[in-house]
């Protein structure tokens, strides 16, 4: 077990998969000679050459479609889209083709591509560089969506995603590439479906994914030390499909749910988890579930306003206290 950074974990997964299979390639803007905006492909250009580590033109629709086409004939492309905001330009190819080609061909073709892209609000990047788009991807049949919250997951999910025969969207985060964490020394594959218990507890379940898992964990510490509330934290690293069983099991234990998301509330992870709770274990609830979401605004440039737009650890603590009738 070694402590490495999130980007190093991604880089290791790329490297191992490219060594194993000559048809695994990676492509994206500035990923080759320049080593990648987030260094996830650092050094791979020298090791595998320009045919397999492809610096693309700034044509998100074009190169994503190209990767999808290549996947029809056995290639396993890992496509990096520099920022999820730019992924909108690739939506036609991802939604209309990758997600549907197996279905509409009656099982004849499939598109085993991986699309990785960071979303989230970073530091004053403004409205067009701060989108959180996981909700958009997770609403489409035929596509898997995973979102690693730590280096171990980043490594293990990419390893499995490359080998899976479905198109997989990996939702990363601008602020998390330098996060450190333990990753097993031996090869490790994460299941693409499921959830993880990030902290065990009995009084309330905090549901998070990607960066909001860390807000939940910090909030759980405050709740335990200052308020005597022992919160469980569930890491929903698979957003499509969501882990119905895991959600049900935790809520059936704690009887309370708070869902924490960095995105705007409408048609998102929070509303979806609430629907699952309703469908699976409504009568287990001691209180109505609560969402802690971003404000329904484009992200402002001003730093103070930017902070106000997205949830904080304190918002999570407050939401729990309110649910318990303690504030």
């Amino acid at each position, binding site marked *: 077990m070694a402590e490495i950074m999130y980007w190093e974990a991604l880089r290791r997964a790329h490297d191992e998969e490219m060594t194993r299979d000559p048809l695994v390639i990676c492509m994206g803007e500035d990923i080759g000679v320049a080593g990648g905006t987030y260094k996830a492909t650092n050094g791979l250009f020298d090791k595998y050459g320009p045919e397999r580590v492809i610096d693309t033109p700034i044509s998100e*629709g074009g190169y994503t*479609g190209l990767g999808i086409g290549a996947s029809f004939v056995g290639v396993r492309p890992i496509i990096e889209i520099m920022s999820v905001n730019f992924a909108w330009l690739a939506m*036609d190819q991802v939604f209309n083709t990758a997600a549907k080609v197996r279905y*509409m061909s*009656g099982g004849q073709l499939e598109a085993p591509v991986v699309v990785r892209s960071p979303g989230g609000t970073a530091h004053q990047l403004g409205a067009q560089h701060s989108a959180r788009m996981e909700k958009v991807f997770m609403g489409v049949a035929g596509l898997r969506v995973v979102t690693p919250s730590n280096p171990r997951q980043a490594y293990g999910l990419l390893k499995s995603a490359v080998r*899976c*025969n479905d198109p997989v969207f990996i939702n990363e985060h601008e602020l998390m590439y330098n996060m450190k964490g333990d990753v097993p020394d031996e090869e490790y594959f994460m299941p693409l479906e499921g959830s993880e218990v990030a902290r065990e507890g009995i009084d309330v379940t905090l549901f998070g994914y990607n960066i909001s898992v860390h807000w939940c964990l910090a909030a759980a510490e405050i709740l335990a030390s200052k308020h005597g509330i022992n919160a469980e934290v569930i890491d929903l690293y698979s957003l499509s499909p969501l882990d119905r069983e895991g959600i049900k099991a935790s809520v059936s234990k704690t009887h309370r749910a708070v869902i924490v998301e960095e995105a705007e509330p409408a048609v998102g992870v929070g509303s979806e988890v609430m629907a699952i709770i309703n469908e699976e274990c409504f009568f287990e609830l001691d209180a109505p579930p609560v969402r802690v979401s971003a404000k329904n605004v484009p992200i402002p440039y001003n730093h103070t306003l930017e902070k106000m737009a997205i949830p904080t650890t304190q918002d999570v603590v407050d939401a729990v206290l309110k649910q318990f009738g303690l504030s």
Partner: protein
Amino acid sequence: MKPADKKRVLKEMLFARRFEERCYEAYVERKIGGFLHLYSGEEACAYGVLEAAKPGHDYVMTSYRDHIHAIKSGVSPKAVMAELFAKETGCCKGLGGSMHIFGAEQRFMGGYALVGGPFPLAAGIAKGIKLKGGDEICICFLGDAANNQGVFHESLNMAKVWDLPVLYVCENNLYGIGTRIERSTAVVDQYKRVGAYDIPSAQVDGQDIETVYDAAKIAIDHVRSGKGPYFLELMTYRYRGHSMSDSNAYRTKEEEQLWNERDPLNILRDRLVGAGEITVDEYKQWDTEIIAEIEDDIIKFAEESPEPSAELLDKYVLAENDPWVRGGAK
């Protein structure tokens, strides 16, 4: 083209025409649903290019106007018709429909409904060919109006930068639905547009299959020899409306008349009759046989085939039992 091949391909084109016209009737009879785009009038494009290629070896893809490209690539006409009739015996088990004909075994990589969508997919297949080191090429047939999509430019650029073995065939029938080309497109000659990417190109008569074949030979030789992409523009015309829901009101009788006189079947037939290769009676005999074959064999098969079973509804959404979903091969 050799005389024997010309004779065979004339018969194939006659089959294509009758197949499409029978689809028209089946649509009116409500046996075929959804959108239906027919290829009548444009036959020499697909047949000319694919005669010069190696169907089954080379990869082929196109738009929603796809029945005939699939058939010429080797997909069984019965399976195509059964697909149009939405039956389980259809090439896509009734899940695809007219706009989504596929034949992976025949390397017919599909019909796609989003205008321009296949441009980058074809470049990607070509990238795969290159990585694997084969001598196949990918041939992508699309319409003239598709060239106004952004991915047209993105794909040409990438195909050229990476020297990909892809042949783009533009079937220029002068219209994108009801909008004539000069009303939507700044440069009307499509082959000129690819000059911006330094891609070799040609524009030829798409109604004369021998002309198409000769131009396609040059194009395919170029692509197969590893020199990178090529763009072939074929001037053609569709005889039916854009789809079955199109009134066709935007075209003049004079224009239609002009192109009817340039029917690709008649051009080749008259030439072969003139050369003594076939007789008019022989051609009529073919026609009778083809109409009967379509009726007795193909339509009957489609009619009598079963509806897809309900278990197909969610069978192909995600991979079945993919071990990596569980984190490995357990």
